């Protein structure tokens, strides 16, 4: 999904069946849950990292994501959609929640730790990358979500719709407006 091979993956029934079997076993078998965790850790972590851009924040959010996965796995219902889409949904919710809690969070600048702790300096990236991330983080979570899933993770519009739980038309509209907002933010930072 994240590497642009979603259609190929979705076309492979055996893969989905195997995935379904893994979910069933992971509900009651810790070894199977470990297998699930190890299989999807990289995808989930890459997505969260692209959204947040900070290693420590990413590790915190990823831990939150997999704990949520464990708690929700019993309620998970297979509907022919790859498990990764469901994981992206949980990760998206966790990232957006984290962003709401940390509104002042800006990469590439000194960030004052929460609870009055000492200032933490996030490693400086290349200017354009910093600018791009700052501009992205300035967008509303719903615009960040669709832009990230579609352009960064390579999901199709239909797949993004299944992850965020809305219509394809809504996703297209958010993508369009998200791009406009991102352009405005980039221009504002350059001026």
């Amino acid at each position, binding site marked *: 999904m994240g590497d642009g091979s979603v259609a190929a993956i979705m076309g492979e029934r055996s893969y989905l069946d195997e995935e379904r079997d893994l979910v069933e076993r992971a509900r009651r078998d810790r070894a199977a849950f470990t297998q699930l965790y*190890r299989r999807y850790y990289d995808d989930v972590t890459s997505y969260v990292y692209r959204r947040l851009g900070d290693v420590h924040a990413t590790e915190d959010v990823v831990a939150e994501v997999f704990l949520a996965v464990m708690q929700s796995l019993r309620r998970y219902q297979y509907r022919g959609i790859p498990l990764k889409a469901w994981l992206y949904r949980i990760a998206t919710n966790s990232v957006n929640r984290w962003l709401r809690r940390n509104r002042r969070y800006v990469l590439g600048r000194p960030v004052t730790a929460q609870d009055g702790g000492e200032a933490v300096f996030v490693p400086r990236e290349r200017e354009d990358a910093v600018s791009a991330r700052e501009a992205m983080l300035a967008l509303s979570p719903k615009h960040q979500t669709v832009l990230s899933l579609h352009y960064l993770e390579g999901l199709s519009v239909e797949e993004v719709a299944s992850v965020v739980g809305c219509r394809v038309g809504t996703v297209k509209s958010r993508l369009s407006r998200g791009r406009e907002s991102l352009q405005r933010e*980039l221009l504002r930072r350059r001026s």
Partner: protein
Amino acid sequence: MRKDLDPVDSALMCLRSKQWTGESYRTQLEEKLMSEFDTQRLGYGTGRRRTLIVAGLAALLLGAAAFAAARGWFAVTVIDGKVVDTREITLPEGGVATFQVPVQGGKETTVTVSGPASAEGGEVQVNVTSDGHNANVEVKDVKPQGDD
């Protein structure tokens, strides 16, 4: 001639190129998850066992209550040495069972059986009355069902 990339596409491409270069999975998180998994399983198992025990006790109590409250008995009514009725009756302990039995002339008489009825079976002390009939009415055999 070099064509400049759209600034939005350029920014998105830049972000997309950002790869997670950390571990393929975190052992520390895995251990935490396994601990949480065991806790949840234990909680689920304990809760399930507790539910089953409660359900079992409830079924037992309901069964006992039903047995005590509505115990089935088998009654044979004899009038003038002749068996006129055989039936199952419900006779709560200390309670009363009433039923109709046929008598001569196509008539019926009401037979009332009152306890106490012993749950042990065998000899059961009952009082029998009948209305409007002077024949010798007795309930010859009253015992728990299944006790032969």
